[in-house]
């Protein structure tokens, strides 16, 4: 067996690995939303819409951060190269994101078929998604999840290499840089152009191509940071 696939196998040895947590947390958020809007949903014109689907995206970041932080030092000690770890994690989590995309789409189908879980609730089948094209809708979920997962990898490797204080210093640095960019954009009155640039693109591009680019960038950062992580 290829060594990267062996490492994928190791990452899935325990049932409680990070792959299932995003779904469990989202399921919790779903149950709460159904309960909540069963009680007060009647009062909302057009039926309740919730952004609680965000939970799976947030937990995906946390889950992949924790995975890198815990599994990489273990594997390095067992003679796995950093390159193989990155490759195996990319394969495993991209597959997870695709499977989750299919899963979320199936949930969206059930939501449609049951008129919003019998209470007119919009949880999975968000209105801004490309709902008339199953493939695109699946890819929109999957690409966004992939971006989250790879951001988590980058965070986990930063944490491993520079520790908690390094992590916060980098967070502070990033905040200052992004803040400075925002100041420049405001000063130069570029916001309209920037919003226009994104608004002119079809949703399917915004939700597939851009997240994939973010994932690729985060993946590159992950590998560059990881190259000097010692076990």
């Amino acid at each position: 067996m290829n060594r990267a696939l062996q490492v994928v196998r190791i990452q899935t040895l325990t049932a409680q690995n990070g792959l299932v947590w995003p779904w469990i947390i989202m399921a919790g958020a779903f149950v709460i939303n159904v309960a909540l809007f069963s009680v007060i949903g009647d009062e909302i014109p057009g039926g309740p819409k919730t952004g609680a689907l965000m939970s799976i995206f947030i937990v995906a970041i946390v889950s992949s951060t924790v995975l890198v932080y815990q599994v990489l030092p273990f594997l390095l000690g067992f003679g796995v190269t950093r390159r193989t770890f990155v490759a195996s994690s990319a394969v495993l989590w991209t597959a997870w994101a695709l499977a989750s995309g299919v899963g979320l789409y199936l949930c969206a189908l059930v939501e449609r078929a049951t008129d919003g879980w019998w209470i007119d609730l919009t949880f999975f089948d968000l209105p801004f998604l490309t709902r008339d094209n199953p493939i695109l809708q699946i890819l929109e979920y999957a690409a966004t999840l992939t971006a989250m997962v790879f951001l988590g990898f980058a965070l986990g490797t930063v944490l491993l290499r520079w520790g908690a204080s390094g992590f916060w210093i980098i967070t502070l640095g990033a905040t200052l840089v992004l803040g400075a960019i925002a100041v420049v954009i405001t000063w130069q009155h570029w916001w309209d152009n920037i919003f226009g640039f994104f608004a002119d693109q079809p949703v399917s591009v915004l939700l597939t191509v851009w997240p994939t680019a973010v994932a690729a960038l985060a993946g590159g950062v992950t590998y560059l940071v990881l190259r000097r992580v010692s076990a």
Partner: protein
Amino acid sequence: MTAVVTVEGLSKTFGRVAAVDRVSFELRENRVYGLLGRNGAGKTTLMQLLTGQQFRTAGEIRVFGEDPVENESVLARMCFIKESQRYPDQFQVRHVLASAALLYPNWDAHFAASLVADFALPPKRPVKKLSRGMLSALGVIVGLAARAPVTLFDEPYLGLDAVARQLFYDRLLADVAEHPRTVVLSTHLIDEVADLLEHVILIDHGRVLLDQEADALRGEAALVTGPAGAVDVLTAGHQVLHTERLGAVTRTTVRGSFDADTLADARARGVAIDPATLQQLVVRLTTHSIPGPREEATR
């Protein structure tokens, strides 16, 4: 015998401290090495460098003729058992063994199972919940059952009681006889492993102090015990490593050995000359060096 590991002018500095300082040696195929030295001497760093887990500042490392850093084919043939090994939180003993089975090509599952029974390790116990000794036993089991052509044990005995340590030495000796491989044992319990070692590398302040066959080392130092005056006469001209006096009796540790005439002379004077044990030699050679700032080494 061919060299499986060759190290040439290897250095690793952390800030101003040279953990490993211009070290050169080689490890040959199918031999058992003792990597000895005090705490902070640089043993662990050296083994991390050999297995690509740390990055060298200068020098050359060749394992099976190649650089080990990020080298899959080399690293798959090495097993490094270290005290600071980290495990994922959810991992139980059996997950660690399953991982090792996937990653080490020579893994012997039957041998591993028999070792798990020998050390009475509970397979379903989370690694987090293992006692210090059980954690060491887990490392020992992985290191032995992996049968990696180059196996490094960094103080594998921490928390293991005397019986378990003896079990480890026995299994190691028996398995190496049957499946020869290069083993490096880094340990403080020198007397316990002295009979196992075929070659000794002594590290002090990041430098190699000794690199010799274990047999040759047995004559490397001697203990001269007897009346003070007689001992002083006999040890004149030898490099004195240590002297202790107890009343009228003096015991001096000297480097080198004595010829037959001197030995007869010593007997006549009521002086006993015994070969120093490996542990005595190591202690005497490294006692002068008090760990502290090593500016002179980094300059």
